[in-house]
């Protein structure tokens, strides 16, 4: 690599091997500046980036929401949020002081043009005093119903254009179905070009999800075995041990299929199943993800009723405590038909994956909190040990399981058979384990740190694109339509279990069974 071969006008003093990626001077405007996401995720992530000196000199944040607050009052609130929600970053008073000097607040109603005028005036002042070059990232951290007014307000005020670049980050949900996703996209494009729209799916920012790409495409060993000849099924599990806890109102309308599978889990599936991109850059990676999502076989009419399983947790006792059922939550209707559990078998119609089921399940109040991807390999074509009863009968004869653990205990494990020590030939499954946290002593950045830095730096590789969003909605629409027309006999699983019995039966009909994560 020779520095002087750089493009004209680019900084010749780069050293990607050693230097942290730097972000050009810019400002960030957060709509929904008082909301839960801002306090729990965005501001702690931004503070951590400041702590690591990853933000540019002069970086500024303008928070906006309805509540009247002074700049200082807002800074105090955000300081408290950092202290409360930063899991592994101490609050350093000097660094906070610098960070807070670039933190501003403008109260306003997103329907009111005066709100945008105030933001524009603040950005002008910031540009002059902090040399941000007119570069602005807008972040929609509001309720989805406010996306439209905010985008229209930005367009009407001219804030979507400026001296530098203007980008916008949109949080999920990207609509509640295909048509509303398209409507949101149309509104976004009234003000922003597609390359300036960053649809965030924080699962894609997780180190371990990115590591799936490194594992698959950085090693020569696994990819040749990553196809229908060797794989029996792939199970993707995203289980939560908690209930809806304060999100009952939203969750009642959304449900597990919309809240998790349509976005996070189909994105993980795409990451596991996509073809290798030619180069690791935004367009190539996103093209391959999109191609995979478009290859998902759509359920035919009537199939959803027998193939997909919906569940809802009921009340239970755990550790002496009484756990409320979903319908007992104060924000939830006692007759809610919402799926708090969903299990769906997807198939991919291409040569590499044809016939391999991707079993995806997610749910609340399950046995434990875990997200992982398990690749179950085919049995050996012939086992010389089976006839002689040498394999352990209890632990089963399907030894080869590759598990990519997304959270917690991030890592990868491979299960295979081994001879049990002693005379004779008795086989038992053993596990070869890689733990992400132990092998790399350095701290892994939180997903929002990665994704915010990417958006500020103009890298959309880990963001979803509209064609991916639409392909995901296409995949779940037949199920949503079927479930919308049915009256389920809920609740159908106990809190603390692994979901409804119908889910086990669904896999059993295919000759498979859910693994226990």
């Amino acid at each position, binding site marked *: 690599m020779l520095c*002087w071969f750089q493009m004209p006008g680019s900084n010749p003093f780069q050293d990607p091997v050693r230097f942290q990626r730097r972000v050009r001077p810019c400002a960030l405007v957060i709509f929904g500046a008082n909301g839960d996401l801002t306090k729990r995720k965005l501001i702690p992530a931004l503070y951590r980036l400041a702590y690591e000196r990853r933000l*540019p000199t002069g970086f500024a944040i303008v928070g906006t929401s309805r509540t009247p607050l002074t700049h200082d009052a807002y800074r105090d609130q955000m300081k408290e949020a950092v202290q409360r929600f930063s899991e592994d970053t101490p609050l350093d008073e000097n660094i906070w002081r610098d960070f807070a000097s670039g933190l501003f607040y403008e109260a306003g109603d997103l329907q009111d043009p005066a709100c945008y005028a105030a933001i524009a005036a603040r950005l002008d002042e910031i540009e002059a005093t902090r040399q941000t070059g007119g570069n602005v990232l807008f972040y929609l951290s509001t309720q989805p119903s406010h996306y439209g007014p905010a985008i229209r307000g930005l367009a009407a005020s001219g804030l979507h254009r400026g001296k530098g670049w203007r980008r916008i980050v949109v949080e999920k949900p990207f609509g509640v179905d295909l048509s509303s996703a398209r409507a949101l996209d149309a509104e976004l494009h009234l003000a922003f070009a597609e390359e300036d729209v960053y649809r965030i799916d924080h699962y894609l920012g997780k180190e371990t999800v990115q590591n799936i790409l490194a594992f698959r495409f950085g090693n020569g060993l696994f990819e040749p075995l990553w196809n229908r000849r060797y794989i029996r099924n792939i199970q993707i599990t995203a289980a939560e041990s908690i209930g809806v806890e304060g999100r009952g109102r939203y969750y009642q309308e959304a449900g597990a299929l919309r809240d998790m599978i349509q976005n996070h889990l189909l994105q993980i599936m795409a990451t596991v199943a996509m073809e290798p991109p030619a180069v690791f850059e935004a367009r190539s990676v996103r093209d391959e993800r999109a191609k995979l999502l478009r290859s998902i076989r759509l359920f035919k009419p009537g199939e959803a009723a027998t193939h997909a399983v919906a569940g809802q947790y009921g009340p239970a006792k755990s550790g002496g405590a009484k756990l409320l059922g979903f319908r007992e939550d104060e924000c939830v209707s006692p007759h809610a038909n919402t799926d708090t559990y969903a299990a769906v078998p997807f198939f991919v119609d291409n040569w590499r994956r044809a016939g391999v089921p991707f079993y995806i399940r997610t749910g609340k109040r399950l046995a434990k909190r875990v997200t992982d991807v398990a690749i179950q390999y085919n049995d050996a074509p012939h086992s010389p040990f089976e006839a002689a009863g040498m394999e352990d009968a209890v632990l089963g004869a399907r030894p080869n399981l590759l598990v990519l653990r997304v959270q917690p205990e991030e890592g990868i494990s491979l299960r295979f058979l081994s001879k049990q020590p002693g005379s004779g030939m008795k086989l038992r499954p053993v596990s070869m384990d890689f733990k992400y946290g132990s092998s790399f002593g350095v701290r892994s950045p939180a997903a929002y740190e990665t994704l915010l830095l990417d958006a500020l730096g103009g890298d959309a590789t880990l963001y979803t694109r509209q064609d991916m969003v639409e392909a995901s909605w296409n995949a779940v629409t037949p199920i949503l339509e079927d479930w919308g027309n049915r009256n389920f006999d809920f609740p159908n699983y106990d809190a603390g279990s692994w979901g409804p019995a119908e889910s086990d039966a669904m896999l059993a009909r295919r000759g498979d069974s859910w693994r226990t994560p």
Partner: protein
Amino acid sequence: MSAAPIDTGRILRDLDELWVNLGKDEHGGAGSDGVLRACSMTLVVCTEGHDAELGETLALLMRDHPSRLIVVNLSESAAALTASVTAECWMPFGRKQQICCERIAIEIPEHAIGDAPSVARGLIAPDLPVAVWCRSRRLLHHPEFRTVVRLANKLIVDSSDIEDLAGRIATLRAFRDADTRVADLAWTRLTRWREAIAAIFDDPDYLAHLDAMDRVVLEYQGPHRPMSTCYLPAWLAHCLGRRFETRWYRAGDSPRPRLFRVALHGTSLDVAIKVEADRSVQMHTGTRDSHCVFPALGEYDLMREELAIGGEDPVFEAVLNLAPEFA
């Protein structure tokens, strides 16, 4: 004359026994999840004499880069080659499982240096990268040391205090070959300086005037020019693809040689970075001054950065080629 031989097979058996015992001890404890044996490379540390700080540095390094650690100590007091094995363990916060790395300490008397390569060769963890960190000048120049380096994918030295800049650069270039990369902690120390210079030229207004740069002034403190005053202009020359006038000035005392100030001059360019002994940094760009702090970096921080680079470091390779011009 040869010292008493060390049986590498015996050392490896001792290691196996160590792991068995560690496993037994930990599984016996209530609430324990046992030990996790972690090893991502072999790190051979060549040193001489007793250095209490080194032990602490290596213990910290193991957390970032779990390794089979082989510490070869050239000892005047040792009568014979001796070896011992221990485990370096730590419990990550909030976990019940200890993570352990293995450490093999080899004491070598002066007259037995020639036996070191064969011992080290037999102890290297199979199929994993090997890094050699040479902290001893005498070992670096010992003819047998070349055999040890041949085992390594990476040789790491520290030239910060070296007076004979040209001689050291020639030594490093001689060690470099297709299989072994060379790293110098004197170069690692420059990362913050280089990042600061690069950050200035992220601003298009400054970048536009970079072509006008025709003079570099380097000020240092201490008894002689530090290696950084050679590497930094070599880096600038590499990045710009051209030469410029370079001047060096001694700007005060310091127990150890250190880079103090770098200034880039041209008809329309005036940039300077000055780092005081307390690591406070003054950056002067045109009419603006700004301040920050470079973190104090010890051997642990520097080694951590170096061990994180497993492959090529093409910029340093190029700098090493140009460095003789500035020595």
